[in-house]
């Protein structure tokens, strides 16, 4: 078994809602509410889920861009939630992030060269030959070095995403969290980026936490996949296992909802009723019970346990056996 580079235990992040004269906390947005998963060295863990289920929050908390409400984030055996700022600075070299919006994730007022160089300046690395390093980085992501002096708006979306990659790679991290890196891109560009990611992973032995709402993309890039619903992870399994043998009704419904670009490939559809409840007042019991086609009484009261149901296959459903 490979080393678990990242292990998340019972992580929670609540955003308090303050109201009234004294700003009392009246409620919490339970953006993530007790999730556990791990990522192994060199693999890609896909994290899928619908909008607002807490994917980006997970990414930010793991990076400690947000402070967790509770739980552990263990990176290479050390719990980083208790790191002080100096330790965090050091850790930042190891974990990096790429964002969804290629337009918002680059500083519009800095040239690409300046931006990439900054990664070294911050950590006092590569003194004197930063620019060579920048050139190397750009080459890796497939951007010509002479474009270093250009500003972000002079690049297309795909190129910006490459630059985002270059920035993430600058400090040679071992784990890269990709928060929907291709969602905003056109299909033909999306393919370029996905291929790039895959090649880089091989060459630089990177580990990815790949966040997306697009199951086809996640399936394409991931080794294992975790499915999130309303602040919880409902199922985790190896890719093949998950797609062929889902053990959670939500995963099943999700899989069946994806349109297949092959006319006539119509399959059995599980159409869920309603929409995702608000994380402000998540349903009692199993969070999915309001939309679940096979919900029973127990689902409304008792929260299912997140347990192993097969080889490296975990799920949280009272009736996973019957699926």
């Amino acid at each position, binding site marked *: 078994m490979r080393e678990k580079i990242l292990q998340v235990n019972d992580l929670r992040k609540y955003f308090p809602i303050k109201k009234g004269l004294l700003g009392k906390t009246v409620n919490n947005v339970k953006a993530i509410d007790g999730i556990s998963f791990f990522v192994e060295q060199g693999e890609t863990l896909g994290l899928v889920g*619908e*909008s607002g289920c807490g994917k980006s929050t997970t990414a930010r908390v793991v990076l400690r861009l947000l402070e967790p409400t509770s739980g552990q984030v263990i990176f290479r055996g050390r719990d980083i939630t208790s790191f002080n700022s100096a330790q965090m600075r050091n850790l930042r070299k190891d974990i990096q992030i790429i964002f969804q919006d290629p337009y918002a994730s680059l500083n519009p007022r800095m040239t690409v060269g300046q931006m990439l160089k900054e990664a070294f300046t911050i950590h006092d690395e590569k003194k004197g030959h930063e620019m060579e390093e920048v050139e190397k980085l750009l080459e890796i992501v497939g951007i010509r070095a002479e474009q270093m002096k250009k500003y972000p708006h002079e690049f*297309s979306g*795909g190129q910006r995403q490459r630059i985002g990659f270059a920035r993430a790679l600058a400090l040679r991290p071992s784990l890269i969290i990709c928060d929907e890196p291709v969602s905003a891109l*056109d*299909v*033909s*560009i*999306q*393919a*370029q980026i*996905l*291929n790039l990611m*895959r090649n880089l992973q091989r060459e630089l032995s990177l580990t990815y936490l790949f966040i997306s*709402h697009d*199951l*086809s*993309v996640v*399936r*394409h890039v991931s080794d294992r996949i975790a499915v999130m619903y309303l602040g919880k992870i409902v199922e985790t399994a190896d890719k093949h296992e998950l*797609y062929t043998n889902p053990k959670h009704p939500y995963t099943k*419904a*999700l*899989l*069946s*909802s*994806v*349109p*297949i*670009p*092959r*006319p*006539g*490939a*119509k399959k059995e*559809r599980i*159409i*869920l009723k309603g*929409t*995702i409840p608000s994380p402000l007042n998540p349903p009692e019991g199993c969070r999915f019970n309001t939309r679940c086609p096979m919900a029973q009484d127990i689902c409304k009261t008792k929260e299912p346990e997140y347990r192993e149901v097969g080889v490296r296959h975990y799920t949280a459903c009272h009736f996973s056996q019957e699926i």
Partner: protein
Amino acid sequence: MGNSILEVKDLKVSFRTEDGVAFAVNGVDFTLNRGETLGIVGESGCGKSVSSLAILGLLPQPPAKVESGTIMYKGSDLLKKTDKEMQSIRGNEISMIFQEPMTSLNPLYTVGNQISEVIKLHQDLDAAQTRDKCIEMLTLAGIPSPEKRLKCYPHELSGGMRQRVMIAMALACNPEILIADEPTTALDVTIQVQILELMNELQRKFNTAIMMITHDLGVIAEMAHKVLVIYAGRVVEYADVNSIFDSPLHPYTEGLLASIPVLDDVKEELNVIKGMVPSPFNMPKGCSFHPRCPDAKDICRTEQPELYQAGDRQVRCYKYSSLW
């Protein structure tokens, strides 16, 4: 051809902007038949929305300018109609759903107000009848407890609900044509399925012709009867849905199909169309796809290909002409 309801020929639209003239639509031709769904695919900025707005006469003019073309609807050219005449067609005979359910409803008015507005405008109903009609439409659109929803403001509804309201609104007057401009792009997959299912159902019921604009080939495959592939403002391929997916003719269509990951079919490496979409300010000479085309020849670099007939399909590529 008696079945055809909308015929677009040689539509060209440009935008006069501060940075120069953008040629957004450079030749779009297609025919829409009654009760049929026409899928329009293409990458961002290729002119899908502009074409559909041109049909409804909703382009902001200026900066937009229709350079040429005809849009024949029931025997007359929509481009030649006055604004008054267009007003009685819009929302009544041809209606439209937009991509962003979040911003397509006026935040200051209730859902009921916004639906009844279109009903009052085109139908001769009194207040009570209008209300009943609203409720009927909301029910059709699969909105639970429609009476209550009428009084809701848009921000009180989820994205999927809003898109249902938009559909209810668009179908309120039994239009002949429904233009759906990326109706599900902003929605989650589980919601997308609901909406697509709803559209299919309603089409069966009212025999509406639908123009389904999207960049998601999966949606096209599920919804469309015919498919129009647009690249850089031009139709590059026009055929029925099966042929497109089974045997794409145009290199762009081919590349596109190969570059998407497919859920039930694991590809090791995705095929990549190299390069990028050309800028509308600076279209390449010749075939606009030639800088990215694996098969490009000299002629592709100099001469603009026409839309050639290949069997019962149309494709804008020299490969299918006598010139190849």
